[in-house]
């Protein structure tokens, strides 16, 4: 008999149906990347609450989890997207402030080292901030789940409860705006990313 497979998210969630504390294992796996994702959008303080509330809500709904989906990230990021969406005005406000002043309110909240050499110039970053602020919430969710959370098109569709075709069209629209803001018309830059 083969060894039991290492417990995936679905197995862990199923176990938590009868052993609720097992759900903490899901937190240990996914809280840190989810926190960073939320912090990049709204700052670390807001991310604290978003992560805690996401997992509490997920815990409450654990019995409705679709056990055929072995990776819980789409589910968790979908719940988090709802919470982040409640702060969309603050998110846009901070992006606009960054675009206008060159000082990022989100970064100001975090102790970081000096920006390293790989980073784009301040002007490019301000353009990016302005472009992100101009996106609809739905387009921004899709774009950032793919760019920052490394979710696939299908996973983003699952997370947001929208068809994969809609993910593609939203992403296409969002990237077009980002490219326009960056002033790049380089055709090599419009290639499809190969995504998992």
């Amino acid at each position, binding site marked *: *008999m083969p060894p039991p497979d290492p417990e995936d998210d679905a197995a862990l969630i199923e176990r938590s149906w009868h052993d609720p504390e097992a*759900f903490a294992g899901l937190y240990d796996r996914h809280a840190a990347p989810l926190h960073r994702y939320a912090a990049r959008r709204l700052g670390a303080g807001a991310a604290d609450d978003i992560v805690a509330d996401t997992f509490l809500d997920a815990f*409450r709904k654990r019995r409705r989890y679709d056990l055929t989906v072995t990776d819980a990230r789409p589910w968790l990021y979908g719940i988090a997207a709802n919470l982040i969406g409640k702060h969309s005005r603050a998110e846009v406000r901070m992006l606009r402030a960054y675009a206008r002043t060159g000082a990022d309110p989100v970064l100001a909240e975090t102790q970081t080292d000096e920006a390293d050499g790989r980073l784009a110039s301040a002007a490019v970053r301000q353009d990016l901030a302005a472009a992100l602020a101009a996106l609809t919430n739905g387009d921004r969710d899709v774009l950032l789940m793919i760019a920052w959370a490394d979710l696939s098109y299908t996973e983003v569709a699952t997370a947001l409860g929208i068809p994969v075709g809609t993910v593609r069209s939203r992403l296409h629209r969002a990237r077009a705006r980002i490219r326009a803001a960056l002033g790049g018309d380089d055709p090599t830059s419009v290639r499809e990313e190969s995504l998992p």
Partner: protein
Amino acid sequence: MNDLDQLREFRAEIPYPERPRLSPGRSRLLSAARRPQRRRFTATRRNTLLLTATAAAAAVAVAAGLAGYGLSTGNAPAPRPSAAPEHPAAPSQGVLAARVLRDASAAASRIPPKTTPSPGQWIYSKLVQYQYPQGTSSGENWITFDGTESAYYESSGSPITVHTSPTTPPADIKSNPLAAFNTDATPQTAYYALASLPTAPSQLLAALNKVVEAAGGANLVAGDPVAGQAPKNKSQLEFDYLSLLLWNAAGGVGAPPNAEAAAFRAMAAIPGVTVQQGITDAAGNPAIGVSDDGGYDQLLLDPVSYQVTGLRQLSNGIGPKMAAPSPQQLAGYPKAMQRQILRKLKNPAGPPKGTVIESLAYAQVSEVSGPGLK
């Protein structure tokens, strides 16, 4: 560097959080997990009923697959179209059950109607839960009528924790109350779902039948031998769904009295309904158990007021026992099914037939003006 690469570097200096930053959230999660009760009852029965079509199909596939691989189901009783009780109800049972439910209906219709609470109305409840073999525990919970906010004490003496759900109430609460209830069982969704049902018993049952069909009718009827879930006929599934609506409403502000009266009338019209008198609910109060599967899944009513007070599940003794598949056979199944099979092999027998495996009762439910108040 393309646009996505540039975007990936945007705010990339934001670090992964240090462990101390994450520990308050983890503590909140753990204390929620350690609270003795579930916020809403979404336990085995609802889970059974609302299996996603894929999961139900998968369960059937396991059963069919095992047969196909020549595996025996050992001593497990053959699935029957109806989970007949070990102690078949006497013919007079049906008459008695109908009388009890008619009385319950009459009692509900005597309650003066009230206005629908505001979405933010807080509701306090104390739930007592017995689980085999752990025993009895109880917990206090506050929730708003629409389920958006809930509150509890992490431990005695700690400040109250208020949790806001990002996904409730469901968007279709008014347009499709039954679907909204299936998405999220809150006092409000149960209230509107019951209120939306027709009052004529035959039409009400037809509406429930549609829900059961939508949740995967034929697969649910087949049951899930691997999970030890007995086959159920359509009437039994309708009964289970109706009793869950009533139970969830009971944990809130109930349903409009005429809707509750109609629900009991319809329940009386379900073939095979029986009652068990003289039982005690998890909170220690006398109760009548109403059931449609011979007494294994019971909705508990107060014998005097006929209010819904609890839910109870007795073991049907169906603990599937199967011969161990060969590694190759096992590897042929999807991972989720492999897990089910391995678990059943490790733990083949459930508690003896007739053992109370879960019993839930509301010791108190009241509308209050805020979290922490009783």
